């Protein structure tokens, strides 16, 4: 029930975004609309608790991600525009600590958006994330960075 | 700009015709889709390609002619329905008839 209410609030917010107007009136309408959508499609969201702590953690994660992104982004531009393509691509199995699908999705997305890496597949047992590297020269370092960076933040949210 | 669009319409019609005359049913369906795109563009031109604001009364005049837009919308929806049916038909032809080559669908005149 709480989950659904939370989803409904999110939907109301999204409504306000769409309306380009954040007001009580639009929140109410948005809530009703969201309710309608959930009424006809009672598909469950996810079974999470402690939303507000998680929301805070999520905001921290976003900032971390943007920072990482800006720092690392230069690399790919260099690689693409480099006159000589001296790269050795490969797919590496990354051992997952996360078990939650949504969070794994977020992790995979972040990895993809970070230069040089691309998530290819999650094993059905959630043990591995297979990552395509543009250059496998320093795989160990990369994996460590992901473990300590993105996945650590996500694990915090998962708890 | 009219002439540019008109030329594009011509090209689309040419390509559509070419595809419709091909052997493969899928190509025929795609050719028909090109036809309907071209026809929609023609309707767009029929309002005169004057640059103006979209016909939403919150923005300022001058507005473009709203009627062709409404007609195109109807046409798009209709041709979508038609294309959907034609596609499924082609798919069933392939399944049931065993061929999707148009000239193997010849006959039926004996």
């Amino acid at each position, binding site marked *: 029930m709480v989950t659904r209410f939370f989803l409904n609030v999110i939907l109301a917010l999204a409504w306000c975004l769409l309306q380009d107007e954040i007001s009580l009136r639009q929140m109410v309408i948005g809530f009703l609309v969201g309710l309608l959508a959930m009424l006809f499609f009672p598909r469950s969201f996810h079974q999470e608790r402690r939303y507000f702590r998680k929301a805070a953690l999520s905001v921290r994660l976003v900032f971390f991600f943007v920072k990482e992104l800006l720092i690392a*982004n230069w690399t790919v531009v260099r690689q693409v525009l480099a006159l000589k*393509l001296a790269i050795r691509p490969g797919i590496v199995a990354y051992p997952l600590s996360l078990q939650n699908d949504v969070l794994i999705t977020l992790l995979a997305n972040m990895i993809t*958006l970070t230069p040089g890496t691309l*998530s290819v597949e999650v094993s059905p047992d959630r043990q591995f994330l297979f990552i395509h590297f543009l250059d496998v020269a320093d795989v160990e370092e990369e994996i460590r960075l992901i473990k300590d960076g993105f996945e650590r933040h996500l694990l915090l949210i998962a708890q | 700009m009219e002439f540019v669009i008109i030329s594009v319409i011509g090209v689309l019609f040419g390509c559509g015709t070419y595809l419709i005359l091909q052997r493969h049913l899928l190509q025929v369906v795609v050719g028909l889709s090109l036809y309907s795109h071209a026809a929609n563009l023609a309707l767009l031109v029929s309002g005169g390609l004057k640059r103006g604001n979209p016909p939403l009364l919150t923005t300022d005049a001058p507005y473009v002619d709203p009627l062709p837009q409404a007609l195109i919308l109807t046409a798009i929806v209709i041709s979508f329905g038609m294309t959907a049916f034609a596609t499924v038909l082609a798919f069933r032809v392939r399944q049931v008839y065993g061929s999707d080559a148009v000239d193997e669908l010849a006959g039926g005149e004996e």
Partner: protein
Amino acid sequence: MQVPYLLDVLVSVLLLLGLFFLLTGTFGLLRLRDVYARMHATSKSTTFGVAGVVLASLLYLRYLGLSSGLKESLIVLFLFLTAPVGAHMIARAAYRAGVSLWQGGVVDDFKKWLDENR
């Protein structure tokens, strides 16, 4: 309608930056050796390219009072979510469908794992 000089320049720069990323992605698409590598280029560069353009429009249209910019940010948010998922979907499908890595590749844990679990 007139906009302040600074905004004008800022918007132009953001636009050009967006274009730069977009073109980079496209060049990557053309130059890189296999589909996986090409996806690296498009999934990132285009996303950032669009982000730049969107930022420009957000500033510009918001200044003109045409939009609060919330919806534009929705586009960026959405792209950041979908581009990687899309790349992932294509990559896994391509791999399964037998599109092999470029010969220069050295490590392939995925292949090993697939062979074990088949």
